[in-house]
């Protein structure tokens, strides 16, 4: 305690009008790491506390969606997935998609949902959408186990390539955070955003090769434009890491560039809007 007092007694907080575009204060974010942890933990805890089935929802959601898409697209429409069983083919894509979808849903309303904190206490506002995205990772981890079980049932071996899932998951989280930063900051001022998100996600899902293979998109320029959707790279990356085949080099590169552009612009936009949150929300 004595040590922390000594440290903080030299700490001087300056108050002045914020002007223009602000950078990201990583040091401050690090200082508040425990708050990120507690808010993430709160989101996880609260989400399942009142649900009768609790954490089972994290299992049910991918299983049920896989079942539905398998019947509609795999069985009835007979979508060509090469030699992959359709349920595994779609589940491998649904996992990162659900991570992205839920993260985006949660983060876009996160600032408004935490208005009472924002108007009362100072902390880097970035923590709010960040922790709401991180909280979704628990669901993802659980549903990943389902995928491994499904692969075991179909007797599909895992290779070392599966380790690529780690950076690919990170890319998904960053993609969701990037879009979440834009949407959450906009939602503070315009509540239309939260009405738009479900439609946005619906369109986005069909613009991602989840229920269909990427091969139905013409190669060349169109395919590259298509790959600017960050989730295209992620989904193709997931399939490659789990099932092998041709690595999605260019697709993943385009998607990663899109994520970086969205994330950097999102961070700056968020920081610029940040100072008005407490007055407007």
């Amino acid at each position: 305690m004595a040590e922390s007092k000594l440290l903080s007694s030299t700490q001087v907080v300056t108050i002045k009008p914020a002007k223009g575009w602000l950078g990201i204060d990583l040091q401050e974010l690090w200082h508040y790491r425990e708050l990120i942890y507690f808010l993430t933990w709160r989101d996880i805890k609260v989400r399942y506390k009142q649900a009768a089935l609790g954490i089972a929802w994290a299992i049910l959601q991918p299983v049920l969606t896989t079942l539905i898409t398998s019947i509609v697209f795999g069985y009835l429409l007979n979508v060509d997935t090469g030699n992959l069983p359709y349920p595994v083919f779609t589940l491998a894509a649904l996992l990162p998609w659900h991570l992205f979808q839920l993260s985006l849903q949660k983060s876009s309303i996160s600032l408004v949902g935490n208005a009472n904190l924002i108007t009362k206490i100072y902390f880097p506002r970035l923590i709010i959408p960040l922790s709401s995205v991180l909280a979704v990772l628990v669901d993802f981890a659980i549903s990943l186990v389902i995928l491994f079980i499904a692969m075991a049932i179909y007797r599909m071996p895992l290779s070392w390539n599966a380790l690529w899932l780690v950076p690919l998951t990170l890319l998904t989280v960053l993609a969701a955070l990037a879009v979440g930063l834009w949407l959450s900051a906009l939602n503070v001022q315009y509540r239309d955003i939260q009405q738009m998100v479900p439609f946005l996600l619906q369109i986005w899902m069909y613009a991602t090769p989840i229920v269909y293979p990427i091969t139905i998109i013409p190669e060349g320029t169109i395919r590259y434009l298509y790959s600017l959707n960050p989730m295209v790279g992620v989904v193709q990356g997931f399939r490659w890491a789990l099932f092998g085949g041709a690595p999605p080099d260019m697709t993943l590169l385009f998607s990663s560039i899109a994520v970086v552009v969205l994330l950097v612009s999102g961070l700056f936009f968020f920081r610029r809007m940040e100072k008005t949150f407490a007055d407007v929300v």
Partner: protein
Amino acid sequence: MWCDMEKDTSIIVRGIGKRYKIGAFQERQDTLRDLIVSQVQNIGNVFRKGGGKSKKEEIWALRDVSFDVKQGQALGIIGRNGAGKSTLLKILSRVTDPTEGYGELRGRVGSLLEVGTGFHPELTGRENIFLNGAILGMQKREIEARFDEIVDFSEVEKFIDTPVKRYSSGMYLRLAFAVAAHLEPEILVVDEVLAVGDADFQRKCLGKMGDVADSGRTVLFVSHNMSAIQRLTQESIVLDKGKVLMRAPSAEAVDFYLNRGLSKLGERFWEEDEVPANSAPFRPLAIRIIDKEGHISDSVRSVDPITIEIEYELTEEITGLRVGYYLFTTRGEAVFTSFDIDSEALFREYTSRPAGVYSSRCVIPAHTLNEGRFVLGVNASSYRIKRYFQDDQALSFSVDASGAAGTQWPEPRPGAVRPALEWTIEERGRS
């Protein structure tokens, strides 16, 4: 950094101002549709008026506020509602940015703008202590080290693993305040947190606040409770319309504030669109609190008579109308209810009131109310016929008990009333 801080100065504020756009405040464009509509209107205005004059007006909630606070000093901030107190605290605790000016705070700042910020009803008391502590800026190990103390202070030990949604409001407040009270920043910014809870609890909070002030930490304290201000702070600044009017020893500042009618806003007007259509033919116009000198005031003294005036208009004659008010404490306990035709004589005289504008006035005798904040609810009805109008929170006001019965002891007294009762003491012989 253009100002050098003295070694023992803890807070320095120079020319701080905060501007709000009224347009952005009241006619907030909540949806994209509103934004589009207003943009189209603006374009229309450009063509119509040629100049494109913006409708948005600006208001300075704070302007040119400067002061220093020495380390270990407790500074009170007083002013009527809307004087800029809360805005000032929000700026100092960095919740919002100033529009202009500069400030420095030396040391960790803990702000208590509201107890229980971030409490989640679904989480248990234990979980909320950690969550709330982290939100208030405590490190996990600090919370762990003080956990038992916090639980002890809150007196909710038995329910610590129960979700707080099952707590009574008293338990909830005690726990919330306990966490906040164990925050140990060098600078503590407190807004009106003592206005909650029962008298016992308030006493405990005041004691804890006193400890904080005594322990050499810097405290900024906003309150409507003038006694608490005088008890806890040495000096106070008086804010009015966003400006610092004076800075003086607290007793002097409080006197200035209470006597200059600065404590205004003890008045409430009803706009036409605030009154439900089914109130007709009764239409409330205003309610106001009037002090001994005849000034409208938000803060009145217990030792003076307090006048409550309700102004209204009848668009048609009403039979059997009674207009009156309920007096509540801010905790929602009813203190008393009174109607203008309670007395036999007025009851007979006003069996019916023709259309016109009226005012009903009532005097609460001196030495009636205890210190604290009270809420007035208005009711206009004809008994068993129709309730024309009711507003349970028409207006609130503060009562200052300085000089009232028993104030020679600076302790808060439980109860909403503080009558000066006649006692006799007799000596029945000596043993």
